[in-house]
């Protein structure tokens, strides 16, 4: 249990630092940035008992990103939303029969992981850019940013997950 707490706190700090110092400044094609801090929400233990701390920590990681990037509360809102929706998205991606208590994201098949991550990332980015731009006149712009950034984030997340799972085995 202690080990889980330490590894989650380390992951929290490393992901926030990586996000604000490196991935917020990629500006691919002028405006695309991946939001890899989502991996914290992906990796957080799948335990029914810890759902409330999970919501708090997701809010906290979003808030940290918001403080660093002066973006109001858009990252906090998007992170809390996907943290709350994670069980629902898991049921869609992995099926009902899964034993969630022992589920490890690195042990799932590529197809399941792909579905899970893309649903999570699309929801997150949609909320993020809707709140950030916040104008009905710019729906096309919101969707464009959501889809292209989501592809970018998804690719990086898949790379990260395969890198770190290989190290452990």
């Amino acid at each position, binding site marked *: 249990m202690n080990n889980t707490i330490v590894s989650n706190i380390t992951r929290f700090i490393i992901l926030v630092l990586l996000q*604000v110092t490196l991935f917020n400044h990629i500006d691919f094609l002028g405006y695309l940035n991946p939001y890899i801090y989502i991996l914290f929400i992906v990796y957080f233990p799948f335990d029914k008992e810890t759902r409330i701390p999970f919501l708090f920590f997701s809010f906290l990681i979003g808030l940290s990103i*918001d403080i660093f990037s002066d973006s109001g509360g858009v990252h906090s809102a998007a992170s809390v939303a996907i943290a709350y929706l994670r069980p629902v998205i898991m049921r869609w991606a992995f099926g009902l029969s899964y034993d969630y208590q022992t589920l490890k994201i690195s042990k799932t098949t590529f197809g399941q992981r792909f579905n899970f991550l893309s649903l999570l990332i699309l929801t997150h980015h949609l909320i993020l850019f809707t709140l950030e731009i916040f104008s009905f006149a710019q729906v096309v712009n919101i969707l464009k940013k959501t889809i292209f950034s989501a592809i970018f984030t998804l690719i990086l997340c898949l790379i990260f997950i395969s890198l770190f799972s290989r190290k452990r085995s």
Partner: protein
Amino acid sequence: MQQIINFLIRNKTFIIFLVLFSIALGITFQSHNYHNTKLINSANWVSGGVYSTTDNVSDYFHLKEYNEQLLEENKQLRKLLFNREIENTDSLTIADSVFNQYRIYTGRVIKNSYTTERNYLLIDKGTSDSIRQDMGVITSQGIVGIIENTSSGYATVQSVLNTLSEINAAVKNTNNFGSLQWDGKNIDVVQLVDILRAAPIKAGDTIITGGMSSIFPKGIPIGTIKDFNLDISENYYKINVQLFNDMSTLDQVYIIENTDKQEIEELEESLNE
């Protein structure tokens, strides 16, 4: 009563989610309002410290560019200096108080941002270096923005690339004033609105600060007219202005303090009463 408590306990996850989500929405909408001190901002020692550390490293990769910029600026200043001496012999002596109206501080941008709708920069000077809210920020090439939040060692700057930004601007050599805004589309192009239809403008004209507010002195370069068209009411022009500054590579900036600002504001307030 029992039922209400039971309901709360059963749905505690959902309620906590709602609370956190509304807090986040509250912070977001608060930051969408023009000219509110932001609750959440990067002018604090944690984020300031992280950004100044990373900036120290990344600065080394741009030393050559910065040198060239400084050289160019020195050239301009020297030109002014040499020409002034000659002109001064037969012009009126200007009272010292005019020169002392504006104080200049220097600073470095340690976090740049230009990809979102509401961009804020972070500079490495704060209240302990006498930086206050609503001071103007410029570079040798043109304007950058206005100081928004300050901590003791850091300050956030509302960039001109911010949909909330509104800066008084004018067409050079005319008295046509308008307000400078940004539509959030192109990081090189800002919009100047409320210029009367009768104004004689053409593409390539220079846009400068208007000096109608107490933030920027008159005459700081902003950019050139790229193209223009009439707005919906057909009485005013909406002008696209190509910025002189490359907002993606900012580093050394100057912060302008107007020492008469308080006096001007007090006077304006007494008029409103």
